[in-house]
């Protein structure tokens, strides 16, 4: 019984060590010749384009709901005109990056975990390896880089549709012209709001791709392990996103953004 905590710590340290080694393999393979452009573009399509509907609807509804929820309170303070500003700042700086990243952790990270996990179970990764090809370069590098590029773009799209949702929310009870709404929204937004959020989503993208690939690539041989890989990919990627967000907020505050 006394050894149980020690074994648990050992397991955590082993897992951390394996993740560092896997990260090292990823970085080592980025800069090799014969980059898999075709597979990279296919992954950008699968990860980015195929997530447009989910991310778009989510962004639109977030903007719409925030507007409706905040409207009574703002009205009570006579500050209705501040709704576009408030929505713009909150969507761009925090809500869209984190919510979209969490949604993508559920959709993309679990998808990658399940796909690579089933490839591991059916010995497809071994087959790649014994044929002399490089499965890390083909499967891992392409997916992680696609996530790094597509998650920030999806977040920007969610920001834009969030504005549209907010505009609709405002117009349910008032009539506000698009020019007035968007000029008020954008007048409060600076590059200092957009850039830290954009950089944050690059790290979110890395976390989503990396955890999905790590869990899938290192899953065990049984069919049960595919489900475990997908599940733990979502849980771990979500945890990483929250931790990265916490660190990013501290950094942006310290840097005065």
């Amino acid at each position, binding site marked *: 019984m006394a050894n149980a905590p020690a074994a648990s710590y050992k397991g955590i340290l082993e897992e951390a060590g394996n993740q560092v080694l896997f990260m090292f393999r990823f970085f080592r393979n980025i800069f090799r010749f*014969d980059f898999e452009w075709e597979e990279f573009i296919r992954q950008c399509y699968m990860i980015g384009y195929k997530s447009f509907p989910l991310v778009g609807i989510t962004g639109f509804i977030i903007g719409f709901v925030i507007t409706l929820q905040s409207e009574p309170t703002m009205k009570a303070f006579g500050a209705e005109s501040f709704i576009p500003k408030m929505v713009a700042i909150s969507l761009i700086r925090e809500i869209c990056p984190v919510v979209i990243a969490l949604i993508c952790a559920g959709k993309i990270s679990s998808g990658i975990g399940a796909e690579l996990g089933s*490839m591991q179970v*059916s*010995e*497809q990764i*071994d*087959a*790649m*390896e*014994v*044929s*002399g*090809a*490089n499965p890390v370069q*083909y499967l891992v590098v392409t997916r992680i880089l696609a996530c790094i590029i597509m998650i920030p773009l999806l977040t920007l799209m969610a920001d834009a549709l969030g504005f549209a949702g907010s505009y609709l929310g405002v117009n349910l009870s008032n009539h506000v012209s698009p020019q007035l709404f968007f000029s008020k929204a954008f007048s409060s937004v600076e590059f200092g709001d957009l850039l830290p959020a954009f950089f944050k989503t690059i790290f979110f993208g890395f976390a989503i791709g990396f955890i999905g690939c790590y869990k899938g690539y290192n899953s065990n041989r049984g069919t049960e392990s595919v489900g475990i890989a997908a599940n733990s990919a979502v849980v771990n990627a979500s945890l990483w996103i929250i931790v990265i967000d916490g660190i990013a907020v501290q950094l942006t505050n310290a840097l005065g953004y």
Partner: protein
Amino acid sequence: MDEPIQNKKVDTPQDNSDVITMRHIAKSFGDNAILKDINMDLHKGENLVILGKSGTGKSVTIKLIVNLLEYDKGELKVFGDEVKDLSEQELKKLRTRVGFLFQSAALYDSMTVRENLEFPLKRILKIKDEKELEDRIKEVLDSVGLPDAIDKMPSELSGGMRKRIGLARTIILKPEIMLYDEPTTGLDPITSKEISELIMSMQEKFKISSIIITHDIACAKITANRMMVMDKGEFVAEGTFEELENSSDDFIKSFFKL
């Protein structure tokens, strides 16, 4: 250019025609000793069948040869080079000379048959010319008797067809050694016989040396030049099919009972 074969010291005299030699190989997973003391040679051009019950370490043995798993102790030489001592590039080169047919065929299920066959050609042989790719794919599909499967997805293929395409994907690199992991498991007797005959035709056509892991006696009878029987992580018998079939040992005899 191929590396010259180096004859480093081993316990027993090594024949220059041996393409694989294993001496005192041991492999454990945690406390579970899978292989205890494996000694084996694969002669050039022969079909060696390894017979044994499930879980005795047959698949582990051939996975050590291509370094999919690392052995704990002993010496394992392929084309005269110790597998453990190979650099990443040398290992990659070795793997192009040793083909591996997995039990499940391991076709890439997101790719068509054509893309499965192109995969090693583009990445290992760096063939970019479309006509050359097409010619080589057609040649190898003809060899396995499935020229019409070229644009099918793996999910549209039967078990026997998947094995044939898996074999095609492996021989497309023209390996000198083939490792077959239970090539007839899960197939009906007629398809099993066809696969066994295909293994023989590969040996004749491409002069391939093969290790065939199986517990299918019909497959062993067709393909084996020599057989070794494995039990509990060790080889317990060796001989031709006829010699083992007539063995007086109860354990060996149990494989040949219908």
